């Protein structure tokens, strides 16, 4: 035990210094306000624990929210229509969904550009053809593509939920840098965000008759967006569990073999 005194004392002292520095900094940041310092609870989405899976019903509701509300401004250009079979659509339903959209086809015999209905193999069509069109339609701000949004923001699905449910009246003394901005203390880049509150009670009529409150829609669309960013999550968790169980047994066997082999080395007889 006395061999551990030196490292424990020294590293403990350093841990104290680090703790002091980090808490001082965090308090200063919170006091300055803004920049997404508002605390939000960790909702514990079902897919967030190590045995977690996606709730297919929530994913389908979330897809409906995306399609009816968010898709007006936000693309999902890394997800293909065929991926929708993973959240419970049949192949025919997917074909029908895709066919609603027109995407660029090849040039025709005269060299003119054509359009064709989308196929399941096509990626989701973005609402704007390019960033300039997106900016022009949204007061200079580009609505980000949502394919990776839960991986591209600290806090993931919890952040998306907090953002969507977090719009408030600004405090009396707060002035927006520009009059079209909206107040949301959860927004990571400061309390003023260009996106107006996208959800209102009953914005969407759910196919399964769940009541469409703002928290419900936010939860569903955050789940859906997490799936869009991490479609491999369930396989990843399942494979990981199998891998770690296998490794535990294997390591146990290796340990036994090592100990048996080393018996004479640890107990020399002369």
């Amino acid at each position, binding site marked *: 035990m006395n061999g551990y005194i*030196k490292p424990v004392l020294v590293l403990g002292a350093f841990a104290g210094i680090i703790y002091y*520095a980090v808490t001082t*900094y965090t308090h200063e940041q919170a006091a300055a306000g803004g920049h997404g310092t508002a605390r939000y609870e960790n909702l514990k989405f079902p897919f967030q624990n190590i045995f977690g899976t996606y709730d297919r019903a929530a994913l389908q509701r979330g897809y409906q929210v995306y399609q009816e509300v968010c898709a007006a401004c936000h693309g999902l250009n890394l997800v293909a229509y065929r991926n929708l079979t993973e959240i419970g659509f049949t192949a025919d339903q997917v074909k029908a969904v895709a066919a609603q959209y027109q995407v660029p086809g090849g040039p025709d015999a005269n060299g003119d550009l054509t359009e064709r209905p989308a196929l399941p193999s096509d990626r989701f069509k973005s609402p704007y053809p390019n960033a300039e069109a997106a900016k022009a339609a949204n007061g200079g701000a580009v609505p980000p593509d949502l394919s990776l949004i839960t*991986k591209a923001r600290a806090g993931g699905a919890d952040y998306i939920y907090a953002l969507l449910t977090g719009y408030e009246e600004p405090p009396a003394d707060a002035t927006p840098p520009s009059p079209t901005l909206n107040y949301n203390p959860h927004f990571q880049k400061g309390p003023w965000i260009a996106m107006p509150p996208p959800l209102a009670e009953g914005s969407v009529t759910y196919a399964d008759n769940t009541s469409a409150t703002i928290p419900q829609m936010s939860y569903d669309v955050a789940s859906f967006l997490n799936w869009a960013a991490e479609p491999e999550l369930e396989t*990843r968790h399942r494979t990981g*569990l199998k891998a770690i169980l296998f490794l535990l047994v294997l*390591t146990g066997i290796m340990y036994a073999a090592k100990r048996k082999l080393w018996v004479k080395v640890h107990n*020399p007889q002369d």
Partner: protein
Amino acid sequence: MSKPFRNPIIRWIDHRLPAFSFVRDQLEGYPAPRNLNYWWNYGFLSMVMLMIMILTGIILATHYTAHESLAFLSVERIMRDVNWGWLVRYIHSNGASMFFIVVYIHIFRGLYYGSYKAPRELLWILGVVIYLLMMATAFLGYALPWGQMSYWGVTVITNLFGAIPFVGEDLVIWLRGDYSVGNITLVRFFALHYLLPFVIFAVVFLHLWALRRFGSNNPLGIDAKGPKDKIPFHPYYTMKDIYSLGWFFIFYAVFVFFAPNLLGHPDNYVPADRLVTPPHIVPEWYFLPFYAILRSIPSELGGVLAMFGAVAILFFLPWLDRSPVRSARFRPVYQWFFWVLLGDCIVLGIVGAYPPVDPFVTIGQLATAYYFAHFLIILPALSVLEQPLPLPTSIYQPVLPKGRERFAEEGSLTQRETVQDAVQTKSH
């Protein structure tokens, strides 16, 4: 000589190309000290990581496109559409972190037990060369997904070379291949990232060749003199290495399967945009101490020199620390400074993660000053001033039940206590 191989095909090949004899000789004909502890497993783990990184890297390279409009999309295609692509990608990205973890432990083992001292100075220097090559490889590789952190990290680090007087600005353009970081930079970074691991492989071969010359150091730091001090590497240390690999893979698997993006930065999932600078540009965690040192010095050139100096100083370690005693087990004062150095490096890492504001600025400057003081002032001073504990007479003696009593007769009370401590505190 060792007995002939049983398999006639192997005998036929080995007679004409003695590869099998070579491997058998390296493993069975290589005596290692009998008292190595688990801190000696990390060299093997490092080699395993190098092989995993090369294997997964080549698989990724068969699906990756090194062009600024396609790089990010090709990585996402690997994640979504390539069978088990997400697994290969996460093994590779988390593998970089695992590689640095095992190498850092391997380095600190060397610092504690004096493995850098004569006659192993060149072994140590080759190790520092491998570390530098790893840092270069990791930096080049991080650029490849072409996310925001990739692009801006490359911009910041290539900008630093502009601080070099006279040649700086031209050097930056030459490195990037263009006036600003762009497609040309990405393409050449991919080529170099593919090349360097094979250079690392060659230097690892030299590192092992140098190790073979005098054999491994050991926790007591004294030379292995007689045959009783040693045991054959195979099967004892091969079995121990494979056992430790099990625990290591479990640790690795937790990250790959359950927290694959914990060690990364969310901004790298945003495609690179030269018009939008992220609020905080930070490198991956294994570079954070150097980032803190860079930002601690107010002058740009000074910061660059300090950052490179922090690695370069390791080359001179065998000549800065001249104490004739190798292992910290017998250097009680040095032990304190070892732990302070480790704590200092961790503090530097945390400072590097935060923006350069108080209290991190002051703490970072103090930690940087201490880091250099450790190597330039404290180690040379200890070489002269420290009173080490008496060393045991051999590696084999402390292991014997009779050996301990023999010490009581021959040596002083202090000596017996020391040897008892050396035997009983197995974790050192």
